[in-house]
């Protein structure tokens, strides 16, 4: 099979496929099905400077061709992750991207500052969908100015490459991408979930309000990847409803240099290894020497 290796921020990854943050637990949970080293990089569950309990249930709800989650960023905190889990990835020579968040700018900075550079840390992925509790709960990723500031400040406390993960709930994702780039982001992940709600007609309840993921998100994500990849020179990691190899290829063609797979793993726990294999086969069948041959080739 062809060469799937990619360089990301001067680190080599076996392939351009990662899990999406929050959809592969702390990593170890999948080991009875497939080895973590299958991944190009493991993206951590969203971590914060201090542990968080998350939301009460229901936390997940099925939607036609998608799902809504309201996990509420439950996590054991960045310190425990590095004590208890990080050695596992190092032992398995699996690069890690550390997804992190905060409810205030200070929390973002505190968390980023705690993470020490390491040969197996490819990047920090900064979740900008998080509500800013000092600004009435409006999330950090909404205004170009605010994005510029927080990215710049985080860059000031870490030497690790920084990827900004953007929310689609903005007026124009291209201007947010540009602001992140100008703030110093080394890459972008597009996109996080889209806010949504369910009405249960029988019980006359709104059982859940949360983030929409899965196939439903794909056309929205593809648009974001395409438009942002034309507007900024930094690498883009695509995410949103990638269920199979064809979906993955479409993200590369739209301009993504790597992809993340989330909800698909819940539907088929082998989705990630299958898609990695599928990408290899696609490249072989089309005489490509690497993923670079198809990144961003789709014409409008």
């Amino acid at each position: 099979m062809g060469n799937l290796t990619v360089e990301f921020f001067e680190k080599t990854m076996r392939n351009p496929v990662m899990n999406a943050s929050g959809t592969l637990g702390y990593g170890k949970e999948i080991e009875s099905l497939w080895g973590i080293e299958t991944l190009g990089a493991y993206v951590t569950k969203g971590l914060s400077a201090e542990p968080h309990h998350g939301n009460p249930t229901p936390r997940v709800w099925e939607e036609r061709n998608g799902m809504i989650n309201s996990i509420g960023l439950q996590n054991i905190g960045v310190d425990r992750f590095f004590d208890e889990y990080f050695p596992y990835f190092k032992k398995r020579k699996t690069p890690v991207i550390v997804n992190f968040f905060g409810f205030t700018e200070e929390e973002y900075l505190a968390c980023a500052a705690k993470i020490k550079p390491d040969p197996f840390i490819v990047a920090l992925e900064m979740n900008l969908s998080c509500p800013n509790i000092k600004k009435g709960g409006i999330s950090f990723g909404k205004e170009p100015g605010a994005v510029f500031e927080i990215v710049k400040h985080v860059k000031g406390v870490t030497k690790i490459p920084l990827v900004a993960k953007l929310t689609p709930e903005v007026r124009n994702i291209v201007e947010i991408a540009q602001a992140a780039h100008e703030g110093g982001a080394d890459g972008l992940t597009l996109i996080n979930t889209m806010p949504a709600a369910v009405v249960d007609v029988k019980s006359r309840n709104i059982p859940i309000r949360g983030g929409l993921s899965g196939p439903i998100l794909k056309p929205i994500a593809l648009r974001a990847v395409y438009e942002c990849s034309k507007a900024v020179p930094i690498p883009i990691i695509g995410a949103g409803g990638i269920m199979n190899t064809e979906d993955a290829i479409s993200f590369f063609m739209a301009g993504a240099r790597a992809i993340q797979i989330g909800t698909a793993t819940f539907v088929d726990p082998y989705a990630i290894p299958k898609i990695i294999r599928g990408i290899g086969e696609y490249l072989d069948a089309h005489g490509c020497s690497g993923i670079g041959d198809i990144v961003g080739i789709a014409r409008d």
Partner: protein
Amino acid sequence: MDDIEATIIQNKHIVSNYYTLKLRLSKSMGRVLPGQFVMLKIPGNEVFLRRPFSIYAYSNNTLTLMYRVVGKGTEILSKCPKNERTLVLGPLGNAFHIRKTDKYIVVAGGIGIAGVHTLIKRLGKKASIFYGCTNKEELSLINDMLHLNPMVSTLDGSCGFEGNVIALLGGYIESTKGEDRQIFVCGPAGMVRNLQKLIEKDRTPCQALVEERMACGLGLCFGCVIKTIDEKEPYKRACKEGPVFDLWEILL
């Protein structure tokens, strides 16, 4: 544990909206413990996520589930013909822990019987079984346990004790006071809460199999949590740290 190809060999209506589903697996599931469950792919592509079901019985690569039609997924499942193929991810979750004791008491309500079925088979005559359901007809769900002399209650009084099974259990708990007992429970949340109240004073050892909405069943998504008394980390995953929890450690 693995995601295993399976073929429906029987999909049988029992009574009202209850069914049993027999699947032939293409390979062994390995060792199955009482209380464990599987994530079943619902054939077709009408529903998206898998559905969790307790392992009702398993031997020789044949898996049996007992299910109740409650929504879209189980509705579609109830119409699946023989020979339809699907996928079964499992066995998943922890298990009931059977500690040596004088008296085993198994309490189940409605479809909750599916969650304790392998446990009852394991305990055999050593268990006192309490089963609550709606009416006489639903007692056919425990047809294969009648030789174990289960105590039954029906809401309509059409057979056994009239009322809920916890009320029925009350007398027994009273009469066995002081003995070393161990309770296993699986049923609707209301029933488990009533049990908690009933045995609150003595805090009788009790393990509960809980149901929560799940996306992955593998501990990946943190969608299926249940609140516990652990203040540092209150939310535990029903699919990973559960589905069996110590009744005195969970907050229902």
